[in-house]
């Protein structure tokens, strides 16, 4: 507090007339802004020493160019200013601050010359930089262990137990299966998870001679789905059963796609509807129409927004991460089982972290900030 009194403008000595006048002013230091691409410099000063309550003008001089020019304004109490205006890494800059008082304009002395630098590592992302390799290692090691034959069990997932029953039902009724891989793009993991299930469904359906119809919203997803369908029929030993026209592009329009899906449901009267992937508002339109048509319905969705609607209208619903577990469950492929094991270990670690974190927080040690 004492310092604040000392630094008030009332204590300032009268200016000596020179432009740099205004002492006792306060010290301003300038540093390269950390964790950036070399386009910013940060000025700092002690708010306690600065002209209290004043609005400071930040002045910058570029080496080789004449004089100081204003680049921004800031309240003196803030204590810091980041200059991001048109800085280049190959130029040098220096700064000073100015402010108005009753006696006229006052200025701090100029800082030293400095150039902004670009960093090769963003330290503010340290937590992610630790978490990503750690989790990757966990998953990859679990996969390796599973490949070497480490046994890993997997709990029952009702919705997936029902897949065979559903396909059997379609075969019995002599009706096709309708499968939607969701409305997301091909680079979204939810779509990939849905497509992995598609492969298993087509394979089993082809074995029993049942058609699978797959309308798509995304053109890339369609091409991928076709490749998967072709392979699945091959694996099932019925390559002739594959038909390009069963896997087609409807339209990119979300509700145009919904219209095409319900139209298909009403006309083809599929015995089973699979909704596997990422869905949005159209989810309930699809599931409710399917329900009225009397189809058996199995959904899997990683968008928590639509899960309530699938749960209330479908026979079985894979919730969130269960969608990602599905292909492991259906194929029992060691790679996928191992990966799932890795995810489980990560969850166990996170639960532990939450427990320890809360206990520490109760005794006054905050660790949450490290996760930012």
């Amino acid at each position: 507090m004492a310092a604040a009194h000392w630094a008030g403008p009332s204590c300032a000595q009268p200016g000596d007339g020179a432009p740099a006048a205004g002492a006792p002013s306060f010290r301003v230091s300038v540093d390269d802004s950390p964790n950036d691409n070399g386009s910013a410099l940060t000025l700092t000063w002690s708010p306690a020493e600065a002209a209290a309550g004043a609005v400071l003008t930040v002045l910058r001089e570029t080496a080789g160019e004449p004089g100081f020019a204003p680049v921004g304004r800031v309240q003196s109490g803030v204590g810091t200013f980041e200059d991001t205006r048109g800085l280049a890494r190959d130029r040098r800059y220096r700064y000073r601050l100015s402010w108005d008082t009753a006696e006229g304009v006052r200025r701090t002395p100029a800082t030293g010359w400095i150039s902004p630098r670009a960093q090769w590592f963003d330290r503010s992302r340290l937590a992610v930089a630790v978490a990503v390799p750690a989790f990757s290692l966990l998953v990859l090691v679990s996969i390796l262990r599973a490949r070497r034959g480490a046994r890993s069990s997997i709990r029952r997932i009702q919705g997936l137990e029902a897949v065979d029953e559903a396909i059997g039902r379609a075969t019995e009724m002599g009706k096709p299966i309708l499968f939607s891989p969701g409305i997301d793009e091909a680079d979204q993991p939810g779509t990939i998870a849905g497509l992995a299930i598609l492969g298993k469904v087509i394979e089993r359906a082809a074995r029993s001679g049942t058609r699978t119809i797959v309308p798509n919203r995304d053109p890339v997803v369609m091409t991928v789905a076709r490749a998967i369908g072709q392979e699945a029929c091959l694996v099932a030993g019925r390559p002739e059963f594959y038909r390009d026209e069963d896997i087609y592009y409807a339209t990119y329009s979300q509700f145009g796609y919904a219209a095409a899906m319900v139209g298909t449901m009403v006309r083809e009267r599929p015995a089973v509807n699979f909704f596997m992937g990422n869905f949005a508002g159209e989810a309930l339109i699809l599931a409710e129409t399917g329900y009225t048509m009397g189809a058996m319905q199995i959904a899997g969705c990683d968008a928590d927004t639509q899960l309530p609607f699938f749960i209330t209208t479908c026979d079985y619903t894979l919730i969130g991460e269960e969608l990602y577990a599905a292909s492991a469950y259906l194929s029992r492929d060691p790679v996928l089982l191992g990966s799932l094991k890795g995810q489980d270990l990560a969850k166990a670690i996170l639960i532990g972290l939450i427990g320890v974190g809360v206990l520490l927080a109760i005794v006054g040690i905050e660790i949450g900030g490290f996760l930012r």
Partner: protein
Amino acid sequence: MQVSTDVGIWVGALGTLAIFSFLYRENPVFRLAEHVLVGVSAGYYLVQYAYSGLVKKFWYPLTSEHNYWLVFGGILGAMMFLKLNRRTRSWGNIPVAFYVATGAGYLIPSVMKSMVLLQVEGTIQNPFAEGRTIGEAATVLVILAGVVCTLVYFYFSARREGVVRHVSRAGILFLLAGFGATFGYTVMGRITLLIGRFQFLLRDWLGVGG
């Protein structure tokens, strides 16, 4: 009441009614509307993507800003068409791999931060911190218990026995309560959509109401 004389409004109103007719049952009018919607919207998106992807983001920067790296984009895009032929199909996998892997790559750290770490951080709170009311403390504790139970529910490789069974059961109840909340919350949005359509029919078409 002043019925609109604008052809566009009439077309929109008839399209709206055609889709609504599905509520009674599927019928030729709905089927017509469905196919119009599919055709027109596919054309709309084709033009939008062709213009923004190929003219705005490819041709313009290539010719006036000489950004020749984009040629790779053109080549990769063209290679997508190899997917159409059975013999060349596998070469079409290169653009697909490019597309999927770049997405997968930048997703990893971003998702780790926003869907995992920040969510864990948000859960780590002292329920008994100074200045909290009993209600706030309860909220913190409920969130804490809920997150842990739900995570246990999503634990796939353990058999559901003993404590795990009970905790995971609590997890599913948390999930269902959350779904109930979402459902209840969503109703409002869905009704709004209908209000929008009715306002269009009443105001714009029939000229009734404010």
